[in-house]
């Protein structure tokens, strides 16, 4: 009995370490969907992973800069059984910079002003059938902290099948090849600096991670 407890403790330690190393995109507890490494599912990002907003004219500050379709995600989800469900989320990462609500500074151009906060970046996710949560609406990371999450396809108790194109959050097996408007996601980004924020000029960086994971 004691031996079994030891194994459980070891398992818990390994699992906890695994969770800590992936604080947001947690490992699934099921194996209903095929994986993307050894299996046949695929998660493609077909666009440039480096996005740059350059504010060099006063008009940029007023109108903001919007980068449409800067990120495009395409899914091909194959199933191991009929229970295959998945969720798609994105979370913001400032590389562990403290304060945790600010962009990571790379270079300062001056010495007066305030650092931009994480809720400055706006993201809009959409596709042809409107499957994402808040489809086509600009959203911010409202909790304004590192690893804050915006759900694209949330974890649902029900399984929504493709093909209806009715705005449901399709979360079952399927492919962008056969149901493009349900398994393709376009993402726009927008930044509108506000003069009232009195931002400190400089170069800042964040990372946005897109996590696809199957759910029970």
């Amino acid at each position, binding site marked *: 009995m004691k*031996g079994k407890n*030891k*194994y*459980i403790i*070891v*398992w818990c330690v*390994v*699992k906890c370490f*695994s969770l800590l190393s992936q604080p947001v995109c947690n*490992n*699934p507890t*099921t*194996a209903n*969907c*095929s*994986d*993307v490494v*050894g*299996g046949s*599912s695929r*998660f493609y*990002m077909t666009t440039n*992973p*480096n*996005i*740059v*907003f350059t*504010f*060099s004219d*006063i008009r940029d*500050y*007023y109108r903001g800069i919007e980068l449409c379709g*800067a990120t495009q*995600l395409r899914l091909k*989800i194959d199933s*191991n059984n009929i229970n*295959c469900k998945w969720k798609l989320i994105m979370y913001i990462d400032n590389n562990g910079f403290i304060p945790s609500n600010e962009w990571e500074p790379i270079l300062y*151009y*001056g010495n*007066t002003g305030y650092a*931009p906060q994480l809720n400055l*970046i706006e993201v809009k996710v959409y596709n042809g059938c409107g499957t994402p949560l808040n489809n086509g609406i600009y959203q911010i990371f409202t909790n304004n902290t590192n690893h804050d999450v915006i759900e694209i396809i949330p974890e649902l108790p029900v399984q929504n099948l493709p093909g209806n194109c009715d705005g449901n959050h399709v979360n079952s097996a399927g492919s962008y090849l056969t149901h493009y408007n349900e398994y393709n996601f376009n993402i726009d980004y927008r930044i509108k*600096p506000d*003069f009232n924020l*009195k*931002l*400190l*000029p*400089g*170069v*800042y*960086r*964040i*990372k*946005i*991670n*897109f*996590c*696809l*994971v199957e759910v029970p």
Partner: protein
Amino acid sequence: MRKLSGLIASLILATGLTFGQLIDEKNVTITMDLQPVLQLHMTTPDYIDFTFDDIKDYYAGIIKYGATILKVSSSVSWDLYAVGTSTNGTYWDQQLAYSGGGGGNAVDQLPLTLLELHQYGANNFDGSASAVPDYSTPFSPAQTPAPAQNTIYSNANPYIPPTTFDKYIQGHSGAAPTDGAPGGSYLTATAGVGTFSNYYFVIDYRIWPSLPAIFPNAGRYDNAGNLVNEDLVSVNGPNAYARPGVYTMNVKYVLIEDQ
């Protein structure tokens, strides 16, 4: 041995839970380059001539109304100042002397501070205790001297900003929130009827020599806030007056990040 095999089995169990399961992640790095933008649009003639060829011009002075219009756009907090400068330190450059240069008391070192400015649109971001923080006070009537009230800030190095007791058009020395105008633009800032926004200024110029031509208003405030008269009599003694001739100076308008 049993323990070791059990440990191995548990590790396989733990890692095996993630094998063959759907999980993947893609990353986008977003870089934001916030460059400081300070734009000063100026509408003005290349030269502003003051020709004193009538005795009443000496008595009344000459005013050039609305000769310069300044429009500001800035992404950062800012200060705007005018500075008089020349190749002769803080004196006008004499280009030509008339009639042998006048009599024995004629002086050709005319202080830059004899030039007076009047700005429409007051300095609303001055947290200093300066007696005269800007040029918004109307010109004093001729024959009623008001030394240093509207005289231009001058410096042999025009890129040294005015100090606490010198004048700014907008903002002031120091980085306190009350000493700099916030980012914004004349393009969008609104103003009430009959007023100007914080990003738009109209500048008048005046030179008042008086008779004799001693420029009674020339002067400045020192670093302790004391008035320093720079009219020709105060500087050169009784009976001094300006030597007839052609003089030039340069006025720079400098827009800087609040500091």
